């Protein structure tokens, strides 16, 4: 295209041309024609109009994709923006998004992405390679402190991004990286015309706060910002320039508006959904699910149990090599118990995981023996053994490790010190506190005295990650992608979330060294089957050595109004709104809701 070359030559000219194009765009109306490279959705053809209301458990903190870290902000930002390559939430596979195709060099180091032609941001400005280069420059800039930066640094060197022509971009990696396309998912492409000035003056991380006017925010997502009312709601309206259409050639999204209503907690979310004030509900816990289930028949909503999620909850002991300086004699004693594999195995054998899923998740969960849940059907190692609860076997293990029992049944170690420890868990997570109480009762059968302390979530994290002043803890990890790369930070001994032993200079055990090796190797292996084999081995080692004792995974439970069309909840985050452009209402008119 003619104007494209001008942009590369002269900036001033580029702006004039862009402005002219914009005028042309508004004069002809955004609906005048679909972009050249439109994406056709395969979903059911619906009818336009309608407003969708969704509850958010906390207010978003920012609209800036480069600085957002909290779930609420990300949920909103996902509706406002688009990425180059997208992970389909349903199939868990990658699909082209803003990039229509890409080529990988044989050595796996160079990715050439072809961008779609004729796309526009939600303010009508055209999109091209400069926006892509600008976005990655911003994410990789250390002064922006973007959470995406860590992802985009492969092999300790950042990815380099070069524009080849206005519609193709070259990404160069310093070493081969398995499933590199998945890195592009959720890396939102920013509008250069709106943000470059802020970036140049070093203020990018402060821009697009919640007080920004709707005209100043634009993206390539299905919706654009309309209104934000502090403490109450955020309203998004349909992006008239969106680049997807249905099979009849009608531009998506169907919905006129999405309103995010801020609610204080899960109970309020359930009550609003029951009252019909919201149209869908996400991440329902099992208790609320059964309350909703009771009223399902009388009301106009449907509930879905999507089966196991990616979240895994686990008990782990403090295996840090550096204990706090003032730690007591008991703490040092405890550390020697926790380090014994047989002790950890005995604890694992004594825990009744079936009962945990039955009582904590009311049967809507899966007992776990490995951190990869059955929800991750691409990567789970099905051959990890699932030993059933057995107190006698656990006792045999303890006996062979030199433990014995006193008259009253108390377990004592070789030096006759009674075995006792404290489990910390987050007070705001009733389910994990419940697990702790059940483990307390389970381990009493072994003669172990367990105390449960529920504390504020931040104090739990502080003790685990900063002071290392704890004995055992229950945590849950989840979300993210299905690919093993997203768990690198947990399994690698130098990882930030290597919870049981943080800040190791080098792996303190031989099996940790093996995991490190396998994880490193799979990272640069390009053949998926070979990677699967290596990750299977990692799962087997984890199940054998038990640095974390996996307990259970909750099912994903969601609900939606029956009149909502194309509702296809998925295992990956965000479970419900991932296909928001295709959602529509069957019977409701455009102005059906006040």
């Amino acid at each position: 295209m003619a104007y494209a070359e001008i942009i590369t030559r002269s900036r001033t000219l580029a702006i004039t041309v862009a402005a002219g194009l914009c005028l042309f765009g508004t004069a002809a109306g955004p609906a005048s024609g679909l972009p050249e490279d439109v994406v056709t959705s395969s979903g059911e053809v619906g009818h336009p109009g309608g407003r969708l209301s969704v509850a958010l458990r906390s207010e978003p903190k920012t609209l800036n994709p480069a600085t957002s870290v909290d779930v609420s902000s990300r949920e909103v930002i996902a509706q406002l923006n688009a990425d180059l390559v997208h992970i389909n939430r349903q199939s868990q596979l990658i699909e082209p998004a803003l990039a229509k195709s890409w080529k990988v060099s044989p050595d796996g180091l160079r990715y050439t992405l072809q961008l779609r032609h004729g796309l526009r941001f939600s303010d009508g400005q055209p999109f091209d390679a400069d926006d892509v280069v600008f976005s990655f420059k911003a994410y990789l800039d250390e002064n922006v402190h973007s959470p995406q930066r860590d992802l985009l640094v492969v092999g300790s060197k950042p990815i380099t991004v070069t524009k080849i022509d206005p519609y193709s971009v070259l990404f160069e990696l310093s070493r081969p990286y398995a499933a590199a396309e998945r890195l592009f998912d959720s890396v939102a492409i920013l509008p250069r015309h709106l943000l470059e000035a802020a970036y140049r003056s070093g203020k990018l991380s402060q821009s697009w706060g919640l007080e920004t006017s709707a005209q100043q925010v634009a993206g390539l997502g299905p919706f654009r910002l309309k209104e934000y009312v502090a403490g109450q709601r955020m309203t998004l309206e349909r992006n008239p320039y969106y680049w997807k259409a249905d099979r009849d050639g009608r531009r998506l999204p169907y919905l006129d508006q999405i309103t995010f209503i801020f609610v204080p907690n899960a109970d309020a979310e359930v009550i609003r959904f029951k009252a019909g004030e919201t149209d869908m509900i996400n991440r329902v816990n099992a208790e609320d699910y059964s309350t909703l289930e009771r009223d399902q028949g009388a009301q106009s909503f449907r509930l879905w149990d999507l089966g196991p999620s990616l979240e895994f909850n686990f008990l782990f002991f403090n295996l840090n090599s550096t204990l706090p300086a003032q730690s007591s004699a008991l703490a040092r004693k405890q550390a020697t118990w926790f380090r014994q594999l047989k002790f950890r195995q005995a604890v694992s054998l004594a825990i009744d995981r079936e009962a945990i899923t039955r009582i904590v998740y009311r049967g809507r969960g899966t007992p776990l023996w490995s951190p990869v849940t059955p929800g991750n059907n691409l990567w789970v190692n099905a051959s990890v053994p699932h030993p059933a609860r057995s107190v006698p076997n656990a006792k045999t293990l303890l006996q062979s490790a030199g433990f014995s029992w006193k008259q009253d049944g108390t377990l004592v170690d070789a030096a006759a010190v009674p075995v006792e420890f404290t489990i910390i868990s987050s007070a705001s997570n009733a389910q994990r506190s419940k697990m702790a109480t059940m483990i307390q009762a389970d381990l009493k059968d072994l003669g172990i005295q367990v105390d449960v302390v529920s504390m504020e979530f931040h104090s739990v994290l502080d003790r685990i990650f900063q002071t290392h002043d704890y004995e055992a803890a229950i945590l849950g990890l989840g979300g993210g992608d299905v690919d093993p790369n997203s768990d690198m930070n947990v399994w690698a001994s130098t990882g930030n979330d290597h919870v049981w032993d943080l800040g190791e200079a080098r792996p303190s055990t031989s099996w940790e060294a093996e995991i490190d090796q396998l994880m490193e190797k799979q990272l640069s292996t390009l053949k998926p089957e070979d990677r699967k084999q290596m990750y299977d081995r990692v799962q087997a080692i984890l199940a054998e050595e038990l640095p974390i004792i996996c307990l259970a995974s909750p099912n994903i439970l969601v609900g939606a109004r029956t009149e909502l069309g194309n509702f296809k909840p998925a295992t990956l985050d965000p479970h419900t709104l991932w296909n928001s452009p295709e959602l529509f209402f069957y019977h409701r008119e455009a102005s059906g809701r006040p």
Partner: protein
Amino acid sequence: MTARKQIALPLIFVAGVHVIALFAGFFAPYNYAQQNRDLPYAPPSPLHLYDVQGVFHWRPSVCRLAARPEKFGVYEEDRNNCFPVRLFIRGPQYTVLGLFQSDWHLFGVSPPARIFLLGSDGYGRDQLSRLLYGSLLSLFAGLLATGLTLNLGALLGTVAGYYGGWCDAVIMRCIELFLALPWLYLLFALRAFLPLHISPSRAFLLLILVIGIVGWARPARLIRGVALSEKERGYVLAAKMFGASHFYLMRRHVLPSTYNVLVTQAALLIPQYILAEMTLSFLGLGVAEPVPTWGNMLSAVQQYDVLTSYWWMWAPGCAVILVCLSYWYLASALQARAEVIGH
């Protein structure tokens, strides 16, 4: 009703409740920590006087519950599998007042049947047993904390009222300070400093200490008022003239005159402190699981689902209302009696 009867009724009730609490192990059919994981949120067991054939039995029986596998918390009674309720039955071991051990229980059924007169909680623990064991901690926390408060209050109040001057001024400013402190937030801060591992008995003592020390200011102010007016009375002045010591005057004349105030205050403070214990345990600052107190039992009702689906989980709330009402009734009866005597 005569004044005597007005006092007697609530007094007997309150005393009865405390005696039951002391012997919780005997009245409770099960241990408070025993989980029946196949019976979470089981409803209160119905007692049957007629068996399946319709034959009447004097001895009531309870039937086994079968969980419906597909539905959580929904049970079916197996009428063909019933067990008679027995009085004075041997069951799990317990200790009375930490002194002697026993395994005799007032009532129970032989396993595998379970008797849950007040249903079971989310872990399948008998709610009645937990309520009884919980009453031991909750009621005695109120009683002991009140004892502590009143002793402190009487001592400091009498001293302040009797001596007056700078001594009075210091104590009064202290009282004002104590009344102005934001206690709940201080307690949260305090919990952060305490070690992770606190045994239930130490947590209990700490709880009493905290509640008792926080509360002394109000009764001290009342008693100071009484002491102020009392020390100007003719017989006190007369005794002083005869050379009675300060200590003698306070012990013989000033303190006894505060008796009525103290008794009424006690009847008012005990329920208030039972509620304070409940508040702290409800917020997770009190005794930890699995040891029950009415407060931490009631915290289960925070969940919307539990609140709306399982009415028997409200039992600790109902119990505390009954106990508090009878204490307040007792307080007003005591007050009325004090006025009669005063005239």
